[in-house]
């Protein structure tokens, strides 16, 4: 008689014989990995199903997310609205000063007629100079010192300009073979030609205040050539980008003040100084 209890035992043996536990380690590892991934996917699906079901936690998460989006949107709008209202940053001020310096240099470099009245204060005496740029090669200077007036006409030798200089519209270089200047003109030598004047305006421009506000504002800048040296102060008409006044310290007790009238753009009212008769 055959016992029923032996049947499962035989099936187990049969299964072990059919599927022996002798898989290569790599295949077993892959199979374990696949099983693990399937289990993870199943768990994720379960979690997703739970998450999809309405629950207070889900609602609070959604609310938090919406609030964060709203706060971020407000931050963006705040940033955009701050832009025009806020004071200029250091970078913006620096960029503006540089751009104004470039624009003024460009305007001065153009072929313009200039009449410039210069007052030179010294410890011993004051003197006046009236400088006129007649044309790019000729400058006339009237010097008034102790009631005595002398007239100087400076004729610069024409300097050949390279094609690049002509295209870039930059002033020709003044070579060293120019006629020597009279000694009494040396204090104003930087104002005698446009290229020398541009060199005078070279330096670091820092805003130093606004002198007039009427649409065509007059802005002042301190121009430093070397750190530590006394800066020059130039006032610029912001409509024309032309200097209207220049103040410069000349050693102890010395001071140079120049007022410019540019033709034909500047108003004659730009001149504030008077020449003693």
């Amino acid at each position: 008689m055959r016992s029923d209890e032996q049947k499962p035992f035989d099936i187990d043996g049969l299964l072990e014989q059919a599927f022996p536990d002798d898989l290569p380690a790599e295949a077993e590892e892959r199979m374990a990995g696949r099983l693990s991934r399937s289990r993870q996917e199943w768990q994720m699906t379960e979690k997703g199903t739970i998450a999809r079901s309405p629950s207070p936690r889900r609602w609070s998460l959604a609310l938090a997310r919406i609030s964060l989006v709203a706060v971020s949107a407000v931050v963006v709008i705040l940033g955009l609205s701050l832009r025009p209202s806020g004071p200029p940053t250091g970078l913006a001020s620096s960029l503006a000063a540089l751009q104004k310096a470039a624009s003024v240099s460009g305007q001065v470099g153009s072929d313009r007629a200039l009449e410039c009245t210069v007052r030179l204060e010294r410890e011993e005496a004051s003197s006046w100079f009236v400088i006129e740029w007649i044309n790019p090669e000729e400058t006339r200077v009237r010097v008034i010192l102790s009631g005595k007036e002398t007239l100087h006409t400076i004729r610069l030798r024409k300097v050949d300009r390279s094609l690049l200089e002509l295209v870039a519209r930059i002033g020709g270089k003044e070579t060293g073979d120019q006629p020597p200047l009279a000694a009494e003109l040396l204090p104003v030598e930087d104002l005698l030609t446009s290229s020398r004047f541009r060199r005078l305006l070279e330096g670091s421009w820092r805003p130093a205040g606004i002198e007039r506000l009427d649409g065509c504002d007059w802005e002042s800048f301190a121009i430093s050539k070397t750190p530590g040296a006394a800066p020059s102060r130039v006032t610029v008409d912001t409509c024309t980008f032309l200097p209207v006044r220049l103040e410069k310290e000349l050693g102890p007790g010395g001071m140079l003040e120049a007022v410019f009238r540019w033709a034909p753009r500047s108003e004659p009212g730009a001149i504030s100084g008077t020449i003693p008769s």
Partner: protein
Amino acid sequence: MTPPAFKKSAWVIGRALIVVFLLAGVVLSGRFAHFWDGAGFAFVLGGGVALFLMGFSVSHLGAAARYAAGRPLREEDAAVLPYLWEALGRNFWIVGVLGAMANFVLTLARTSEGIQQVAFLLAASFRPALYGLFLAVVCAVPALKSREDLSLREKSSPISVRGGERQPWIFENIAGYVLMVAILGWTVILPSARGFLQEQRLMGFFFDRSALLVVAGGTVVIALFLGRASLGTSLTSGLAVTGLLGSLMGLMQTLFAFTHRSIQDVASALAFVISSCFVALLGMILAGIPLADHEARASSRPGGLAFNRLAWYIFPLLALLFLVLTLIAVVTPIKI
């Protein structure tokens, strides 16, 4: 000498001669000094390596070096190598552009020269970007070669790809952050210490409040909308997109201001452009890219997403372009 060995030697000598001729051409042009900036090169090299360590480990750096030296590799390194070299090249490029922006802003902050000299210094501030691009191109060679090797290896024996498992932050990552902060501080603190910036509030030069708010707020919004993507990818994409949006807005305002001939408005808009790009790039370097690399490290076969790659390469390129436009706009006189 056997024919194949002779051919190989001739090939090596030929390549060396090409490099020598190239360098000789640059040096003989007489303007080589204009292209050299030791501090800028150190910034790009150090910054790129620091950024690499912020997301990877020294062993990854070693694996990349072993590959470059032609030494045998482990199988798991072979699968990661293309991404490692790409990441290194990408780091040099992004750090180079950031260095160019930092140089540009520092020049504006500390200069005491005239327009011509400032224009020269501003143009010279692009040198770190040049070094970054050069190093990125150098890294592109092993990146492409290792990708080719990997595909050949996969044809013969497929490499198993395992899913991403969260990797813990390791010592090298912290060291990378410290190194990066030190390098960024060195570029700012050193000139401050020399007294150039005593009268300036330096942070005001680098960070425009409105640009900071726009980029930060926009990035959070985009990261929230990209919720299912990885955090590193979301942040990188978000920062690039908002940085670009901010820059474009600033550029449009610049054009409007030009029509009104208002220099103050032009300068303010240009400052917004620079600050938007700077904040976005800095955010990418300090948060987006390390997180993306960290997530890539978890994968046995990482590969950048197409959108991520756009953020890595195109956004810095556009930022550099905006910087060039700023330079041109600033030194060009407004004609009346």
